């Protein structure tokens, strides 16, 4: 649900990074945070356990500049990926405008990827959204690992609606901004339709 503030001339949108545990959602946000100039970002908040696993969410506010005189602000959130945090994942999807699904390319994580897409679909439905219609980008992360599954195969298994798909290595930034741009663009195009 985009928040359009005519008084302050601001558009605020919410993007959620979804995916199985340890797929690199937080790493995506950390890379974006590190590479964005200080005047275009707010503080990054990570609600994590002592072992740095996301407990509730990470949050990064980004200012992308102005469009038709309106400041466009994107609030990026990650969800906790571990299966048993489902109640928290649901809460974070509230009011979402666009979703990035971060898939782990390792063969051993393919089943977890599939289960997480299914979980995303269900949790979106509980908030009255459809994965079919919401702005959505798919990222194949960890392409640098030797056990990475071929992209064709990952596409066949994980692509939901021919959404834009990106290969990434979030630790060194490959594909990170391309994925973000893709979903942000889709959100703005949606805004144009309204």
């Amino acid at each position, binding site marked *: 649900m985009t928040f359009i503030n005519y008084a*302050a001339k601001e558009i605020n949108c919410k993007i959620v990074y979804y995916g199985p545990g340890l797929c690199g959602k937080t790493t995506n946000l950390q890379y974006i945070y590190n590479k964005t100039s200080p005047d275009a970002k*707010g503080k990054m*908040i990570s609600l994590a356990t002592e072992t740095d696993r996301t407990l509730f969410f990470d949050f990064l506010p980004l200012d992308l*500049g102005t469009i038709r005189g309106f400041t*466009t602000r994107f609030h990026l959130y990650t969800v906790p990926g571990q299966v048993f945090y489902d109640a928290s994942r649901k809460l974070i999807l509230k009011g979402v405008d666009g979703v990035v699904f971060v898939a782990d390319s390792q063969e051993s994580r393919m089943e977890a990827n599939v289960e997480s897409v299914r979980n995303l679909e269900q949790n979106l439905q509980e908030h009255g959204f459809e994965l079919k219609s919401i702005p959505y980008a798919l990222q194949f992360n960890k392409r640098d690992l030797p056990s990475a599954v071929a992209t064709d195969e990952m596409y066949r298994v994980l692509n939901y609606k021919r959404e834009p798909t990106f290969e990434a290595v979030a630790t060194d930034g490959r594909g990170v901004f391309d994925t973000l741009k893709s979903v942000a663009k889709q959100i*703005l195009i949606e805004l144009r339709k309204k």
Partner: protein
Amino acid sequence: MTDFVLYDEELSALEMALGRLFHDANAKAVFLIDKNGQQIAAAGETEQFDTTSLASLTAGNVAATDGLAKLIGEREFSVLFHEGQQDHIHISIVAKRAILVVIFDDRSSLGLVRLRVKRASGELESIFETMAKKDGVRAGSPSTSSPFSEITDEDIDALFSE
């Protein structure tokens, strides 16, 4: 799902109500936040706080507490209170969709804040009702076109040019 749209007139009305609450409750700062974590309006010594983070964490806090309420069969916990050594936070739900946050210290008291929040909530609710009615009228009028209907692909690309 409909977007949340805020115009000058309503913002001024909300800010006036928050300003009154800030004075009457002897607070340090008062914030009105959308349940999705966006700040709507504020009053008081807001510059000493990271307001964006505050809005997002408050919304997370309220969402988690709502989840807890449902787990034990309650509809909601409408008031949350966090007591610190110097500063305290009083959080309440207004008009089902917004969160009212009052930050105060020992110049005020929980009793006073609760009392003033109750009065302000009624005022804020009636502003939200007016907003909802106006939204309905605007949605039904073909003459009001969104400034975003004319966004071009170039406008969007320009955002990502750096």
